[in-house]
């Protein structure tokens, strides 16, 4: 019973955080809202007995990634006058929301079709580092290996786009 209540609380906080992310004007406020969403998502993972994902969500996303984002915003040192004037932003927001109504309606229909399953506590090892590691390195070897290529491409790309370029050789 109280699992459902906890889920509702986390879900509501997550939605409130993402609304704040979109609606606040200053990037720093938006970033803090994003942190709130990340933490409440970690709560939902914990409810699903996904222990390792819960930890990673807190350490990597709510911790490292958010710290990085906040640092970047601080480096940029944005003031009120640096922010672009968005006079018609609410018109765009409402327009976008209207366009999304059919999609949302469709999503609600899909969600309603999911059969209700009673919550039950899954096995002891579920979601632990050992169990997850075993699945990851046996069944899911290919995605795990090609993720390394993805990170490499990102790294090279970041150097190319932001790094110092040597003068052309000719």
């Amino acid at each position: 019973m109280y699992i459902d209540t906890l889920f509702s609380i986390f879900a509501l906080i997550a939605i409130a955080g993402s609304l704040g992310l979109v609606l606040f004007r200053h990037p720093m406020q938006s970033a803090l809202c994003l942190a709130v969403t990340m933490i409440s998502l970690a709560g939902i993972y914990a409810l699903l007995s996904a222990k390792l994902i819960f930890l990673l969500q807190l350490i990597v996303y709510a911790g490292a990634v958010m710290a990085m984002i906040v640092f970047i915003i601080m480096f940029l040192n944005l003031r009120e006058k640096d922010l672009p004037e968005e006079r018609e932003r609410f018109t765009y927001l409402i327009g976008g929301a209207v366009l999304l109504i059919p999609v949302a309606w469709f999503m609600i229909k899909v969600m309603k079709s999911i059969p209700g399953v009673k919550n039950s506590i899954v096995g002891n090892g579920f979601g632990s580092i050992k169990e997850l590691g075993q699945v990851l390195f046996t069944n899911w070897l290919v995605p795990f290996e090609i993720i390394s290529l993805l990170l490499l491409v990102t790294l090279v790309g970041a150097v190319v786009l932001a790094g110092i370029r040597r003068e052309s050789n000719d």
Partner: protein
Amino acid sequence: MHDLVSFLPLVITCTGALLLMLYAVCPKAEQEKASLMSMGFFAVAFFAQLLVVCTVSRPLFPETFNGMLGVSGFTNAACLIVYACGFFTTLSSHTYFRENHFATVEFYSLLLFSAVGMVLLSMARELITAFIALEIMSLAIYVLVGFNRASSRSTEAIFKYLILGAFSGAFFCMGTAMIYGAAGSTRFDSIAEWLAFNPATTPLMLGGAFFLLITIFFKISAFPFHAWVLDVYDGSSNPITGFMATALKTAVFAMIANFLALSGNLHDSWITGLFWIAVFTMFGGNLIAIGQDNVKRMIAASGIVHSGYLLIALVAINSEYFSGAVIAYYLAAYSVATLGMFAALSWLGGEGEKRVTFDDFKGLAKRQPLAAATIAVFLLSMAGIPPTAGFMGKFYIITSAISAGQIALGVLGIISSIISMWYYLRLIVSMYFHDAEEDFIVDGSSLASISTVALAVAVFAIGLFPLVL
């Protein structure tokens, strides 16, 4: 052993990408050498791919990879197209960067990395693997689009493409989650098993496939998601635009054709949707293309139209004996003509891509008869005039649509291809029936000119090549 041979071209490309990445930090690295090296890697990978003989679809290393990658005749053809596109793109880049000095060694490394992503995407038999492959490909392409940091158009292009691409990528994840919720697996074979006993119109499955298709339609610039394509193609350098228009489209089409061919059940539930998307893509693309004055933007818009023809082929595929031959053939025909156009543009474009509009090519036939003739061949192939490859490709697509009972779609395809002659012939008219206003002095011995001529020959070769895939 078979698996190793099938996997070898991918290993070669990947090794090439890594070696070039390491070469880039070497203090004496030169981008000309790097371009020759990547040409070599693409060529070796292409010939290694030719060795792969594969008639039936089978998983690659089933024990180790757990059925997440697979090969089939169609996948082989798609990989061949990707490697060939990579090879010819490197040839044009070699020439292009003689006059536009912003390339570094990393450019070629990223080109190879994106080819790795494309090949993985066409081999993927599992949705998460497909997503990661899609992102490897897209991230490398984003960087290649924004490579010229000094140009504001290029920066605008990468910004638009990156934001919209990341947004559309999120739909793929959402769709994967929903399909997992329905079928209990993200592997294609398990999904096919599930679909054999359950209707594909189960809300979760329908929703999942819907979100996957949103991402795919974005990547191939099909109708409601085509708005980015003009600015992005226009903002990136000529060789990269050619690579994006051909290799990327090939890989994405290979993936979605593999997915839709999973079961007749799934395919049937999307026929009506695909029908309308194909029609709107063809005619919307034609309308946009007619209004363009810039050759690059015209080719970009005509790329939308060609996606429409390929969607016709998707409507007509048959999951009972899916070979994808029609799609692969059309992709090859389209890739040859488009790559040829961009090779010619890289050859003639000049410094800072100064020759871009229809008027800039006035009288080209009088000064550079060979270049004008090859461009005319590519345009005629895209318009679908016999005996070029484009004609045969369109012929196969329309006959396959008619034999699948989609007569209306076949007729609309013919009408669209007649409309498209308007803007293809306009460039030919401007090249042949006007007096030259400038001398078109270009370096005649460049590699792009060789690749242009080779591709023009390929247009006829593929056109005369019977459908044996």
